[in-house]
């Protein structure tokens, strides 16, 4: 039997506002336990929430970027449940009047044909709403207790709920990468799954192909990377298929992904029947989102990844492969555009960025802004190579030194005496030495094995610690043989 997989994703995104959603505590990660808390986010009796304006404007920004309708009238509701990391016994969230609904994103449609077809599939977004994050519990086996830290409590969260439009684990993966890229462009979150600033739960069910009714779904949680989401969904798809094929039923339940075992397991705790008793939050007043506010935020939206890709292809005539890499990181593509304002060597800049620069960024786990590289310096470095002042090899070392020391290209070149040697008289002398040192090779070349010429050039480079202009060395050696 052929089955069809139905997946819907819920993404929780921590917004990178300065302060929490309903109080003035700093919104920071990784601080000592219970040091970023105040009476309001601790839910102490008598305290009251007041909405952070930035959280709402970030939410609207996200809504617009995801092609959502921004609701003109929104309100907050209380979602009531008990959990130690939820200090008030309810979460302030949004129920029937969320910030946004009816949006979509486009992912590559890999099922429709070759990737080069550029076909896209639209994944609908059901709703996106604002809420407060909960604290964190650590389950301590030795203490036989749980320990609660409320620093995270009250971090603004945007929950983005997709329709069940995804048909395989790969689509879920593509949806997440597409979504994450858009969110990074908006600069509303650091989107770091490891830190938990982006979290994802999935609903997955399968049904015989052609069936209209949805199958029984499982909710899958505890996935800590996009790869884990993909693996968990693949596992779950297979598990459900096996059940159905052996005439067993899929049970509606919450399952946790176990990364080590590569399997999902049902949650151990018997969850009480959910009855969240939503009702309008009486401590917050409703919000009218005026058209003028929406337009103001719309005007402030940056160029989004898809539009940027199109423009790069048209404006810079670079390959789609290169453009795709550049737009994956908005700081990198921004850097690229700054560089090409200063030089006409677009292709060279592009090669440098997606080559050595990206390599160093990945190695150092930072982005181009954090690494402190000036566009002028990179352009200068490329110019030096073009002018023959530095060899490509040396230029890469210089680049690393620039990052390590923060010094300029010129300073490093001067300090290290790295200028490429192009002076004929100096090079002649080196060639002379090499020829004298390598009689055997010379003999081979004379017998017609011209490929050994490269070996001689390499020897010359070695001798000069890479400073010799390799092209000139090659020419000089060639001339020697022609002459004699």
């Amino acid at each position, binding site marked *: 039997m052929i089955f069809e997989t139905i997946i819907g994703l819920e993404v929780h995104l921590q917004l990178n*506002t*300065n*302060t929490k959603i309903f*109080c*003035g*505590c*700093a919104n920071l990660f990784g601080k*000592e*336990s*219970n*040091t*970023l*808390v*105040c*009476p309001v986010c*601790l839910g*102490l009796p008598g305290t009251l929430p*007041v*909405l*952070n*304006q*930035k*959280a*709402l404007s970030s939410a609207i920004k996200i809504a617009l970027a995801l092609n959502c309708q921004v609701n003109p009238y929104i*309100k907050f509701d209380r979602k009531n449940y*008990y*959990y*130690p990391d939820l200090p008030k016994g309810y979460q302030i969230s949004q129920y029937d009047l969320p910030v946004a609904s009816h949006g979509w994103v486009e992912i590559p449609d890999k099922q429709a044909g070759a990737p080069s077809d550029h076909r896209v599939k639209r994944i609908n977004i059901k709703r996106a709403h604002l809420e407060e994050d909960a604290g964190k*519990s*650590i*389950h301590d086996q030795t*203490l*036989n*207790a*749980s*320990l*609660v*830290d*409320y620093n995270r409590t009250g971090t603004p969260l945007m929950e983005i709920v997709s329709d069940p439009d995804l048909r395989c684990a790969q689509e879920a993966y593509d949806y997440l990468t597409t979504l994450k890229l858009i969110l990074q462009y908006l600069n509303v979150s650091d989107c770091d799954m490891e830190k938990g600033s982006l979290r994802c739960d999935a609903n997955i069910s399968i049904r015989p192909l052609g069936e209209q009714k949805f199958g029984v779904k499982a909710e899958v949680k505890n996935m800590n990377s996009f790869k884990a989401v993909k693996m968990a969904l693949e596992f779950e798809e297979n598990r459900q298929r096996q059940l159905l094929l052996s005439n067993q039923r899929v049970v509606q339940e919450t399952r*946790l992904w176990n990364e080590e075992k590569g399997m999902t397991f049902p*949650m*151990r*705790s018997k969850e*009480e029947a959910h*009855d969240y*008793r939503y009702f*309008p939050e*009486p401590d*917050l*007043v*409703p*919000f*009218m989102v005026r058209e003028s506010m929406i337009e103001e935020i719309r005007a402030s939206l940056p160029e989004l990844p898809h539009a940027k890709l199109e423009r790069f292809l048209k404006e810079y005539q670079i390959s789609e492969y290169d453009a795709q890499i550049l737009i994956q990181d908005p700081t990198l593509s921004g850097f690229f555009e700054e560089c090409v304002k200063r030089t006409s060597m677009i292709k060279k800049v592009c090669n440098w960025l997606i080559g050595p620069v990206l390599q160093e960024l990945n190695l150092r786990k930072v982005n181009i802004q954090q690494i402190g590289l000036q566009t002028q310096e990179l352009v200068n470095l490329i110019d030096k190579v073009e002018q023959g002042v530095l060899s490509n090899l040396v230029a890469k070392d210089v680049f690393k030194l620039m990052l390590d020391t923060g010094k300029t290209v010129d300073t490093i070149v001067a300090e290290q005496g790295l200028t490429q040697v192009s002076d004929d008289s100096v090079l002649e002398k080196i060639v002379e030495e090499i020829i004298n040192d390598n009689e055997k090779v010379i003999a081979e070349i004379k017998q017609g094995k011209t490929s050994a010429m490269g070996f001689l050039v390499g020897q010359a480079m070695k001798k000069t610690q890479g400073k010799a202009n390799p092209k000139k060395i090659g020419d000089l050696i060639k001339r020697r043989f022609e002459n004699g």
Partner: protein
Amino acid sequence: MNQTNQQKGKTVFSDQDVNYLGRLARIYLSQEEIVSLTKNLGGILQYIEKLEKLNVSGIQPTSHVLPLQNVYREDQVLPSLSQEDVMKMAVSPHHGFFKVPQVIE
């Protein structure tokens, strides 16, 4: 909760309902308490039923009695409490954390 319990104009309120509410509200209820609460709450709910006489179609619900809207704060950091002050309040402090009986997931 048993949906059939609610028939038009007559609320049948049972022990099981009270038991369910106790579970939802995380209050342990002894058998005697359940019996007396069933009686008390049943009586109150019967009184409350008078609202069913009113035609409320087309009436907007009131959540806020005043027409206030769009009350915000600026995204400006204010001082937090010190961990010491926070732990002073804690019913079971443990090295800067609130300790609670084990939560099983």
